[in-house]
């Protein structure tokens, strides 16, 4: 009995020491762009798309698992593997598109942080410089371990979404029904919204970041079982939060017939409908998620690009030793915080363009990932199994199909 007990404790300990990369990636996934999308899903279509989160969660697990496994087996980042296996031209293409989409995401997250603090009555002329400085300080001071702890603490504020969902007293019967019974409409807007929901959940920076942090944390293939759990937990947490965001806006904004464009719109619209608490909780969650993503996205871009082209990188280096690496991060922070002062119409356009670019990049990255994870020279004995490969291709095919529709649709209308 004692033996079994200590075995269990040891396993739990190992799990907690491994857990992190997947969980943080999952939480950062619900950043300002994610919250905006989920909130408008709920506002526009009520509970009707809840069932879709099931499919998305499975897809997310499949994709992130491949990234984590590559990190554990090769000890290298995704962009290094792309460079080594697909050459300079393809690498450049992937890196330029990654740079554009990530820059847009960073801008959106700075905006998200600013907007959420504005709801809490802190003007953006104070909050934006503060957030920029905070992100830069964490970058300069940080080792991965410290950053990870910092993020895990911040991510606790995400619980606020769950509380908010209970505060607005949704019709739980309705919620359960729509979670398990799919409804679909071939209305063009419905389809596009559904695709946007998939697109915001599975974004390229996540694969780069997740793989990089598995490598950075030094997770081995021997401890890979635990990392797999980390992937599953991270994806679940990410989509459970998305679930509650949709429920919150479905129960309030949808009923009142309000549709929204930005994440902060949801928080503002909640105030008269659900009271100050729900509105504040929503804003707090938005701030936490934006802050994490505003740190992670620039960092993972800097790692990806420097690794691909052979520049010095790493948080343990000084600015002088790795100028390109820190230069990219600084560039992101400056542009990210600077653009906030643009008019919001321009800003929304920017976000839409970035979604298009992401739409081009996502399929390419996913195809690279499958090619890499089936390559024996790269993965040795840890290539995808036959069954996994089928699931992976279906997932990837599904996402490619959706992103192609999303990308070409503006040209059709």
């Amino acid at each position: 009995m004692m033996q079994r007990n200590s075995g269990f404790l040891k396993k739990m300990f190992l799990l907690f020491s491994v857990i992190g990369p997947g969980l943080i990636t999952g939480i950062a996934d619900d950043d300002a762009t994610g919250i905006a999308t989920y909130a408008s899903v709920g506002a526009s279509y009520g509970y009707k798309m809840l069932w879709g989160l099931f499919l998305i969660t499975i897809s997310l697990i499949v994709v992130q698992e491949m990234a984590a496994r590559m990190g554990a087996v090769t000890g290298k980042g995704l962009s290094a593997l792309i460079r080594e296996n697909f050459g300079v031209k393809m690498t450049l293409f992937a890196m330029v598109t990654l740079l554009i989409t990530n820059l847009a995401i960073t801008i959106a997250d700075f905006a998200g942080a600013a907007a959420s603090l504005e709801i809490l009555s802190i003007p953006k002329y104070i909050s934006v410089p503060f957030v920029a400085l905070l992100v830069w300080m964490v970058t300069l001071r940080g080792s991965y371990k410290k950053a990870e702890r910092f993020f895990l603490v911040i991510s606790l504020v995400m619980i606020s979404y769950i509380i908010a969902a209970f505060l607005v007293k949704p019709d739980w019967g309705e919620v359960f029904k729509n979670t398990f019974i799919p409804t679909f409409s071939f209305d063009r807007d419905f389809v596009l919204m559904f695709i946007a929901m998939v697109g915001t959940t599975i974004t390229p920076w996540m694969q780069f970041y997740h793989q990089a942090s598995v490598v950075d944390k030094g997770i081995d293939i021997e401890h890979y079982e635990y990392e797999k759990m980390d992937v599953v937990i991270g994806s679940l947490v990410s989509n459970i939060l998305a679930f509650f965001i949709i429920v919150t806006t479905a129960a309030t904004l949808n009923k009142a017939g309000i549709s929204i464009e930005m994440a902060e719109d949801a928080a503002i619209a909640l105030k008269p409908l659900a009271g100050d608490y729900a509105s504040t909780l929503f804003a707090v969650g938005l701030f936490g998620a934006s802050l994490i993503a505003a740190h992670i996205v620039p960092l993972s871009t800097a790692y990806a690009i420097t690794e691909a082209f052979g520049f010095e990188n790493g948080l343990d280096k000084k600015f002088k030793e790795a100028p390109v690496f820190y230069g990219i991060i600084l560039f992101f922070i400056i542009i990210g915080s600077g653009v906030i002062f643009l008019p919001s119409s321009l800003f929304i356009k920017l976000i839409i363009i970035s979604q298009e670019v992401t739409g081009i990049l996502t399929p390419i990255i996913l195809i690279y990932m499958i090619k890499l994870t089936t390559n024996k020279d790269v993965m040795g004995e840890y290539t995808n199994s036959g069954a996994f490969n089928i699931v992976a291709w279906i997932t990837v095919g599904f996402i490619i199909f959706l992103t192609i529709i999303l990308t070409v649709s503006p040209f059709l209308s």
Partner: protein
Amino acid sequence: MNNITSFYLSRVIGNRVFYGESVFGKLVDLAVDVNFEKPKVVAALIRENGEERFYDFSFFEIKKEKGQYRISCAEKKPIYIDVHRTMRLVKHILDKQIVDINGRKVVRVNDVRLAVLSTGTYAVAVDIGIEGLLRRLGLAKPIKKFFKNFGKNITSKFILWDYVQPITSAKSDLKISMSYNKLYTLHPSDLADIIEDLDKKTQAAVFASLDDEKAADVLEELETKAQINVLESLPVEKAADVLEKMPFDEAADILDDINKERADKILNEMDVRASREIKELMQYPEHTVGSIMVRDFISFKTIFTVEDTIKELRRIKPDADVIYYLYVTDEMGKLVGVVSLRDLVIAEPDTLLKDIMKQDVIFVRDTDDVNSLIGIISKYSLLAVPVIDAEKRLIGVVIINDIVYELLKRNRRMA
């Protein structure tokens, strides 16, 4: 058509290969034999109707025609490639990381420069500069022209082949560079920096290829994370052999950091004396003097004469950093004095140590905090301090080097 004297790998890979006037395939890769002083191209890998085959490169010719490279083959002679002495330039070098021995860092290869001599074609340098990247993208010429308008130049950056150390990733089929012989010319601390820059798997592979002496020197210089990685991935016997070659206090430090089961296995594999000493050191909590002291110090009894002492020193041949202060103990092993090397050399041969020793020795307790030790060392400007236990018995020495190391480690943690 012009004969050429040198060319870039990227300019010929993917080009069509002519046999007479007809095309018979595309050039996929060049294989070089590394047993020559400069790696000589011995085979060309050609894709022909969807199949890849190696052909003897001595029948190949590369010429420049209207700015393009034309590859022709006079005789299609299939050739066998010995994986133990050949390396493929595209598969194993291009886009991969190598160690730049001269610049002492890990870099990525953008292109390979080859030279055509009367005796054959040789890889002479790798290109790691921006120009190489642009060339791969087909943008080198226009962009260079553009920058010339502003009087600026895109510099190319080459590493001569003599200073290129290819590295294999764990899953690679590259066998020949496993010796990593070029790395031996590097100073251990430079080599440690390089190893830290590699991915985990490659770290372990490169480290495992070093002999025990070199490995011990390098292990001392590695940062904690890399130390843990290499020690946990090495075979237990090798890990034990390497740690035996290190100063015991540092070995104890490292073993403290790694997984306990693994540390026990390694300790069991070590020779009995070493493992006992290390285990004792490991019992001291971190930040106490005991955890950083050296136990293999030298001490002399009060009744030794100067002559005895010098004879003894000649026999033990102690390291430079422990020879400056000779500690003197009584019958019970208690610390009673210290004799400096200077005092010893200028004294008459038959003088007893107790007559020339200084009795007010500065010492620390094994349980003292390292901070107080640092205070003492800087206050009295000492190179080493003796360590005593509760019964005033001399049990070790702390050398200034170890303190510097401890401070560095702490700074790194705080940064």
